[in-house]
């Protein structure tokens, strides 16, 4: 593998790790931040409890958008078949 290709591959793997950490923090913070109250005190968005709406629905939409942007802007296409070098 050429050096610059290795760099690209490594960077994209790190982006994957970064995204998953962000995804987890968002998911966790809203679910348990808003959801740990007594259900009597819950607020609702579109009929769903707010913790669920922000954590699972908005969280998912944000991830979908983020992944799309990241892939379109930062991922670089490289050839997979290497020329054989001696």
């Amino acid at each position: 593998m050429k050096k610059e290709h290795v760099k690209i591959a490594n960077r994209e793997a790190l982006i994957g790790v970064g995204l998953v950490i962000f995804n987890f923090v968002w998911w966790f913070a809203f679910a348990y931040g808003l959801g740990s109250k007594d259900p009597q005190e819950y607020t609702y968005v579109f009929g769903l409890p707010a913790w669920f709406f922000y954590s699972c629905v908005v969280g998912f939409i944000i991830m979908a958008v983020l992944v799309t942007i990241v892939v379109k802007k930062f991922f670089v296409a490289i050839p997979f078949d290497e020329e054989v070098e001696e």
Partner: protein
Amino acid sequence: MNWESLIPLILFIIIIFCVGIWSGGYLKKSTSFAQDYFLGGRSLGGFVLAMTMTATYGSASSFIGGPGTAYNQGLGWVLLAMSQVATGYFVLMILGKKFAVVTRRYNALTMVDFLKQRYQSKWVVILSAVSIIIFLFSAMAAQWIGGARLIESLIGIEYTTALFIFAVSVLIYVTVGGFRAVALTDAIQGSVMFVGTLILLIAVIIAGGGIPNIIADLTAENPNLITPFGADGSLTPTYVSSFWILVGVGVVALPQIAIRAMSYKSSQSMHRAIIIGTIVVGVIMLNMHLIGVFARPILPGIEVGDRVMPLIALEVMPNWLAGIVLAAPMAAIMSTVDSLLLLVSSTIVKDVYLNYVKPTASDQRVKRLSITITAILGVIVFIMALNPPDLIIWLNLFAFGGLEAAFIWPIVLGLYWSKGNKYGALGSMVAGVGLYILSDSFFPQPFGLHSVVMPIVVSFFVYIAASLATQKKTV
């Protein structure tokens, strides 16, 4: 028998058949049979790749109970299920381009091929092949049983007959068409799951009188159903979070998923697959589990979790539409079974036979052998599913966690850490699987975590330590 909902299902199976056989035609012209049969000639495009990953994975998650558990646990289980959105992008980003390039350079057709070339060790190959065969075989048998149960409860025919229909349909297209057939039918099945769960969710919301109404009903029954903590408050944040390892990032190490990460055509198809995959996984997971929760006020008192989907569909929709929508869970099961079947067969033919029994076998011979082994395996699973031995049921419980514990570091560190060697790989595989089975049997949920977490952490350190300790030996 319910003909009105049966006809769409039969049509669905016929379409799947035709696609399978059509892709078999492509194989006839093949010049490199093994690569085409087991890997579809590395030619998958973005959409098919995304769908085949989602569909294969889609029911790997049914081992955590899916909609049935959501029905019993409430929104907390949907929260847990949403950890799977990560698989949509994570797997392809982590294995990514490096895996694609390296497996091409090694000319690897299976995950074991990759490990063999990377570690140059007979024992790594044997150990991996054995764990794949044992764990995936059991997982397959369990899925097979699930598929037959679904047909049984849907159309009210006997279990054995249902099993027969199910087995024959899967066997034919896998045997004839190989990986390409599996991937293409997965694409159809994935689309059916996507559209089917969407329609069903909407129908359920309408039948329940709107979301606010359904949530109010749930709160009236048991306020815990709308909290993140589960019906009896037993879903702790630690436990639920540890599912990010089991069904989120750990999925990288499942052989049936990893193999797909070496099957695509180009960077462009991978990029598309990441985007499509994330959206499709998220939508299917959210819909499928919400259906489970929302079904509760509409149809209270369902005792067998697996029946929630079929029963609610028949309840809220006209029969013919229910038939179409119910092709979705069936699609999920079929698409998992077909890929497992092919994977176990490739492990036997490619990893064991071609490596150690007869490396010089001709293309013609490999062809006959692959098709025969696939068919024989199918028949054995069928016989086992008729009267499942306890051992299979027991092994199935460990299948996914066990494979993750075994393979995650040998694959990931093998790709990104050049100092990793066969001692590290062997050590981490043994430690991972061993500790996982021990932990699950004797101290489930250590520190409130799912029992797969500790073995993955420990095997990481074993891999690093063993590799560093043996650096001199391998130089």
